[in-house]
């Protein structure tokens, strides 16, 4: 299991490649990557604030919960903070399991919890100024299915 909270960019392909190469006994690997959407050129970037210390703790807790619920061979979470440009990867999760059902469910679970329970706050930077991204009721509701 690996959790990285970093300001440095990461290469999604390299991470997926390294993760996949390391999972002995897995039949299924799922990855999710969250990107800064390029809203028809209106967004000049994003700034992500986080709560050092609590962030790592919260993510380890979420990953531990996933490992206890599903039959996982491995799991990976990388999440950036600081300034990001349009199209850049904000974060990724990867899960490896003997069968696809577990890999998919664990990846979706991790994403739903990272959205609403890991202490990150996104601010959109645009031509018209900057604005904190509001939490969506749908994201909070997504937690209820687990």
């Amino acid at each position: 299991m690996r959790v990285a909270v970093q300001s440095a960019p990461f290469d999604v392909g390299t991470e997926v490649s390294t993760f996949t190469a390391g999972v002995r006994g897995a039949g299924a690997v799922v990855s999710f990557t969250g990107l800064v959407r390029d809203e028809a050129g209106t967004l000049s970037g994003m700034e992500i604030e986080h709560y050092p210390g609590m962030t790592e703790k919260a993510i380890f807790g979420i990953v531990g919960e996933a490992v206890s619920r599903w039959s996982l061979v491995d799991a990976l979470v990388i999440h950036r903070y600081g300034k990001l440009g349009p199209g850049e990867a904000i974060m990724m999760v990867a899960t490896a399991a003997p069968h696809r059902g577990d890999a998919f469910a664990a990846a979706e679970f991790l994403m739903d919890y990272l959205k609403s329970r890991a202490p990150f706050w996104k601010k959109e930077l645009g031509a018209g100024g900057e604005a904190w991204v509001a939490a969506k009721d749908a994201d909070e509701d997504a937690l209820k299915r687990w």
Partner: protein
Amino acid sequence: MIDVLYFAWVRERIGLPRERLETGAATVADLVDELRAREERYAAAFSDLTSLRVALDQELASFDAPLAGVREVAFFPPMTGG
């Protein structure tokens, strides 16, 4: 003495990321009342608690949680990670 941290628009509204306070507040809600009474910018930041979350020693908590033994309180809007 307790460390109080603010994040995102709470930090911006109050104008600082953290401060160290002497408080006799028994619960988070009591601490919020103390802060609101200090200055207008605190009153503004804490005007609607439903739009705020609190963590005690880096664990999510509720506003009626006791502060006994707590070293670090953090106030912030609902999280928007992922």
